[in-house]
């Protein structure tokens, strides 16, 4: 493992839980590695599998999706849908030469800042073990390329 490899991770966080947990981590001055760059969505149910693939294509070494615990979804059950989609996507990833471990879904409530920090640290370590992602995706896999 390359000791000084710092993975690039995209965090796709639900506006109502994990994003707030990240805010709380801030206001409580907790410290965690800077690898995760957060993109906010209203619900983990908005996280489009293609968005995740796009992240990998743009050079992400890992993607962390954060949603509300089951039963806590602000939109009743968006997190269930995210769960199913990501389950499927994880099975697809190997065919694209991406280790499924590079995609992680976590339920982190607005109060669980400490857990968020732990998850981020742990995920970073996990990706460091895997090393940088070197699997260019075939073009046709990607439709949504911004104009």
């Amino acid at each position, binding site marked *: 493992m390359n000791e000084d490899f710092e993975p690039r991770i995209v965090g796709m966080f639900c506006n109502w839980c994990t994003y707030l947990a990240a*805010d709380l981590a801030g206001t409580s001055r907790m410290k965690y590695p800077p690898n995760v760059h957060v993109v906010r969505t209203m619900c983990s*149910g908005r996280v489009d599998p293609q968005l995740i693939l796009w992240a990998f294509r743009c050079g992400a070494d890992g993607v962390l999706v954060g949603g509300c615990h089951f039963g806590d979804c602000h939109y009743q059950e968006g997190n269930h849908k995210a769960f199913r989609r990501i389950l499927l996507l994880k099975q697809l990833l190997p065919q694209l030469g991406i280790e499924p471990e590079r995609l992680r879904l976590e339920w982190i409530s607005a109060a669980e800042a400490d857990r968020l920090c732990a998850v981020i640290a742990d995920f970073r370590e996990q990706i460091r073990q895997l090393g940088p992602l070197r699997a260019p995706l075939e073009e046709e896999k990607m439709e949504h390329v911004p104009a």
Partner: protein
Amino acid sequence: MPNEHNVPALPRIGVYVCHCGTNIAARVDVAAVTEYASHLPYVSVAREYKYVCSDPGQELIKKDIEELKLNRVIVASCSPHLHEHTFRLTTQAGGINPYLFQMVNIREHVSWVTEDSAAATAKAKALVRAAVQRVVFHEELAPKSYPVHPQVLVVGGGIAGIHAALTLANAAKHVYLVEREPSIGGHMAKFDKTFPTLDCAACILTPKMTAVKAHPNITLLTYSEVTRVDGFVGNYRVQVKRKPRYVEENKCLGCLECITGCVYKDARYPSEFELGLGKRKPIYVPFPQAVPLVPVIDAETCILFKSGKCPKGCVKACGDRAAINFDQKEEVLELEVGAIILATGFQTFDAGRLPFYGYGLYPNVYTSLEVERLVNASGPTGGEIVLRDGRRPKRVGIIHCVGSRDDQTNRWCSRVCCMYSLKLAHLIKERTGAEVYNFYIDMRTPGKGFEEFYQRLLDEQVHFIRGRVGEVNDWAAIPEEEGKLIIRVEDTLIGIARRIPVDMVILSVGLEPQADAAEVRKLFNITSSAEGWFLERHPKLAPVNTFSDGIFLAGCCQGPKDIPDSVAQAGAAAAEALALIDKGCVELEPNTAWIDAEHCSGCQACVALCPFTAIRFDAERRVSVLNEALCKGCGTCVAACPSGAAQQHLFLDEELFAEVEGVLA
């Protein structure tokens, strides 16, 4: 797609990086980030400023919009949950659509959580870059506006709920006050005196309780529980279950003759209100000042329900008023309200969880709440402070922090125990002349007049021993201890262990979330802290708001607090609800979805997915159609749509894809 919204072809972006004093600047090289931003595509100007949210900061933005003809604004500062709204208004005031704004969170998500400056600066740059790429795709939008139902639902009839209900009712708003117990009043109704002024709880509470009953704008629903909540801010639909009390409220006059008439000549069942210290009949009112003053029949203990055979003394006593109705069934009400105030309160810590204090093992170990009843004139002993065997205690030990400040049980300080312990110490000393010992870890008397009250007790020669009690038991090591309860403690100020024999031990139990707080939280779709207290939107700036618009918090369901604080918070919650209702309409984030008929393949995947049934399938056009009024903007249909026909404002695919590309570029 963007061009169908009339956005100028060439974006002109202004980027404003905030120092937030040193909050950001101490860790992030703001100058470097600004410099970096100024070279990003379409960025016309990039500035740093000490406090962008300040008036001069906002002025700066407005000026630039006008002079530099900006058509996009980015502010890199704190969390959007804090200031997104502020800066949208600024953008609007500058003369462009407020939604052509994007916020970058480089405080909570960067400067406060990153050790290394270089790394923090790099992360901030990436996030700014992402915003620049994203904002390019932003469209002009108008907030969605909906009418608001003028009624308010208040859940919980303790002092907080009562005060909130009255405040709203006095403002000519109609309030539904739902209480689970047969009477309103909550914990405060159990208290004798209130600290630090020692005015009698009943004397100040009962007028408010009767006012609730009498108020034309309040519908009081006791012995009832909320069972379902849906809808959204301004338009909540609530289902309330009314448990049968077998006495019809509208017919009952509150003469209570039915209770005298009951076949059971004397009360024999432990009274819930008296915490088992007193007894009640199967038909009873929890306490004399109960509101509504309407008896309840407890089917568990009523002989008619048990055996089917009973002379029905209560019915005879009620006579032609015929208020008693054994066939009463559970009733379900549907309410429509614009706002909801949760005042569901707390429960006291179960002292049995700490066996070494002997609660439940030694009869003369009481909880503080039990003692509140003992000292209460309308309590089981008529205010006489006597032990279970009738003796008057000569020495009393009050143990603080039972189930508070303890990693083994509850970590938090319950805030009220020090003061109510002082109050009980005073009352006991005053009425029995007993020697009273307080065992405390730290005396916490930070309220108005609290420290003075502490001083008063010192003058009354109450003993204060700094030390958390080790154990309470009946082991007499020396003859003088025979027949006593022995409190073993280290007197930490003197630094030696002491054994103190007493007749009565009072455990100052802490406050904790209601047993069913978790279910209630889910029911109303709000968040709670890890401990189970309902979570406010912001600890300082939005203390009574929740993350669900239109649902507000009052009293101890949000965290331990005393009566003044609960009342103040209830007032604040009422004001928030009032502001919402008086406006008459709510503006919602225009983050709703739409389906582009052109691209829709009619697969109907979205139809099944939508949790709010906002999407239906148009059979002849063979496309899905989305009803914006019902859409709440979760975007799950967008994520599912295989043809990209479903899109969500503020979270367009282009915007998200650009943002992701941006953070990684």
